[in-house]
């Protein structure tokens, strides 16, 4: 079947009941989505499917045919000359030095990007509501909240330009 990931089309020879997470990681070499629990509880495996955060460990391939999948590797934009422009969320996570081990942060950043795409100026309560399901064992929650607010500012500034 055809998979659309980060704007690229991949032909995948895999059973329809296989979970997207392992196809991304083991067939396509996209390891940005991580395995944490396998039951959709921790959020480390979060990817965007048609812009919506989804737990790829519980997403059968059959459900994503024809849909646009975005992983952490596809969050930044790479220009023709190879230069990389970080997504405002990535820039904000750098600015706030959010990551500790970083294992959960792909899920955190993708969820934040999805939130800001529909709600460019979220309140703290809205940030928490959107992101509470993504565990961080290192305890970076305070910085994540700050970084999502910062990303909203960056996006507002970029939009104003």
């Amino acid at each position, binding site marked *: 079947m055809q998979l659309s990931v980060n704007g690229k089309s991949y032909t995948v020879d895999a059973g329809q009941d*296989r*979970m997207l997470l*392992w196809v991304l*990681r*083991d067939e396509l*070499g*996209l*390891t*940005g989505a*991580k*395995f*944490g*629990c*396998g*039951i959709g*509880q*921790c959020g*480390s495996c979060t990817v965007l499917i048609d812009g919506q955060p989804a737990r790829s460990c519980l997403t059968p391939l059959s459900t994503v045919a024809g849909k646009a999948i975005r*992983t*952490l*590797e596809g*969050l*930044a934009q790479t220009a023709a000359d190879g230069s*990389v422009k*970080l997504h405002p969320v*990535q820039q904000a*996570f*750098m600015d706030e*030095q959010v*990551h*500790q*081990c*970083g*294992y*959960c*942060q*792909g899920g955190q*950043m993708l969820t934040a990007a999805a939130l800001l795409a529909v709600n460019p100026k979220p309140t703290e309560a809205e940030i*928490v509501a959107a*992101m*509470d*399901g*993504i*565990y*961080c*064992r*290192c*305890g*970076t*929650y*305070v*910085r*994540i*909240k700050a970084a999502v607010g910062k990303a909203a500012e960056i996006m507002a500034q970029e939009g104003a330009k």
Partner: protein
Amino acid sequence: MSNKAISEQPKRRRISRRQFLIAAGGVGAALAVGVPMVGVPFARLKLAQFIENTGGPPGGFKAPPMAWFEISPDNRVRVFIPKVEMGQGIHTALAQIAAEELDVRWEQIEVRQAATGQNLDDPVGTSASNSITSLYAILRQVGATVRAMLLAEAARQTGRPLADLTTRDGVVLAAGPALSLTYGEIVSKAQGWKLPDPLPKLKPDSELRTIGQPLPRVDLRAKVLGQAVFGIDVRLPGMAHGAVAHPPTLEGKLKRAGPGQARTLPGVIAVVIEDDFAGVVAERRDQAYAALAALELEWEPGRAWQQAELEALVTVGRGNGVTIQDEGDAGAALKAGGVNRQPITAEYRTPFAYQAHLEPQTAVADVRADGVTVYASTQAAVRVRGHVAKALGRDEKDVVVQPAFLGGGFGHKVLTTAAVEAARLSKAAGRPVQIVWNRADDFTQGFLRPMTHHVLAGTVGADGRIAAMEHRQASGAVALPFLPAIAGAVLGSDFGAWRGAMIPYNVADKRTVAWVAKLPVPTGWWRGLGLLANAFALESFMDELAYAAKLDPLEFRLRNAPAGPLGERMRAALNAAAKASGWGSAPPAGRARGIACTADVGTVVAAVAEVAVEAGQIRVHRMTAAVDAGRIINPDGATAQVQGNIIMGLSSALVEEATVKDGSLAALNFGAYRILTMAAAPQTEVILLDGGPEPRGMGEPPIAPIAPAVANAVYALTGQRLRRLPLRVG
């Protein structure tokens, strides 16, 4: 210098010239130029450091000498770091220390994770908050020494007097006639290196410009872009996936194993059944797990342990207690009584807890005739090497372990099981094999933070000073499972279990006694070891004594702080946390504050919690922590460690608890095992205190006062003294 000196044992925390050796590709003190690295001809500059007098971690770094730097002709500086990056920012902090004396621009620095066998073997591993404390002096001296050697070589190459030369940002400079040579240029033309005699002096504190700066994390961009390779992300050509059968019960033993239909399933490469080991190798991970499920396995389940039985085993007074602190005569003094005549006594309990790092145990092993390479998410690469070599019957010299980034560790990633499983399966399959444990394996096949029980007694004089105090505690083992079997008999007690158990306060008659409980649940390292449990009991009890003495809990601690520098530092931390948290002023309606103060591995932490009870649940609104960890290498990284410790401490205080049912651990995944999520994260303020010139531990100590500060705040708010973790209001 001879190699003989290498085997000398550590004695003092001072580095002498004899500790350094230039070990280069050629004979004697020659420098090998042109060692290929990623297509770039790198000059390899090996600065060796003998283990004697290093102030290194217990046991020291073993010979042969360490190799810390590579300097490329284009003036990039690679620093090889033996400690692993698991979120604590250690690659950044250690590189800052190395860059300081070498006098290079931060942008020139590249950090590389050292593998085993690179002259940087670290038998201690990345643990116990010791990375900076053990390497601070070494890395400064290493940097200063290499800088001096570059200067000397520049003098030789240019014919200029050494006294005319100086360095700035990785360049050797001289005034009129002007000279500017990059380190890379000097290295490219170097003919030899001489160790300076005496070793160069270190910079005075006033000239430090890299140490103490909030520099950005060196690993962050790769992690932000999804390019960082964690252990689970390692991919080798031809790599297959393995899965190994694990007992479903605590005492489970494999009685019989057969391949069943496993060999006929798609993708299956090998089925390995040997003694008590049953595993499979397949092209894909899901195929490996399908094959594992198809094996015919018969288990001897062992005893159907229940939680209450285990709790009874972890009880003060059961078995032989060992007195680990004994000043004055606590027994007699407690009998004499205090202002309240009868001593106050209280019992506390803490539960089993999982480390619950999000990346499960994982490793890739590539077992070949010519050698074995293991890529692992490990805090203890040297330990992995030993265990893999033993399992394969190979010489340790044949095994190289390359740690990757860790998706959390918290003590649990000293476990070597996944690496050994990968190695056994790789040997059988003749291909590299990756093991990625599922969550149930990770929770049940490693080890847990043990349950603990604490009995405290104390009396307070009319002057508000503690007259006598006793802490008796029982715990499952923490350090002993990782030491030779004889250690238990020699030590009598478990230093990991009683970490943080001793009474730091100024009490004439005080005593701490520790019991180790033998449990069917495997227990061991967890962030701070026994620190969290012991601090919860001690600092909650301090609060009980304060109320008995009718003193403000802050005032009570200030009054009873120990004499000398530790007491000064505790008072400073307490006052700083109190001031920042608004201690003494009225909290917002419906809230109350609690305070706690701890000292661990030389680091003093005071914390204030501001809590409410909402819908029957404890809600922590605000946490303030003041930390004196000595010299801070990177204040932003240090702050992050405190913030993380606050969250992990709150998680233990409020939700975490692992239990046993019918002979097995009950929680086999998240959900059943709760950890704190963003919704429960409070507003936090972190104050880093000026703690003098020596750095101290930061990875674990700030977790200590969090739970008792919350419990004490709940008492102030509700009058309920909660003596059991996780805290639950009635």
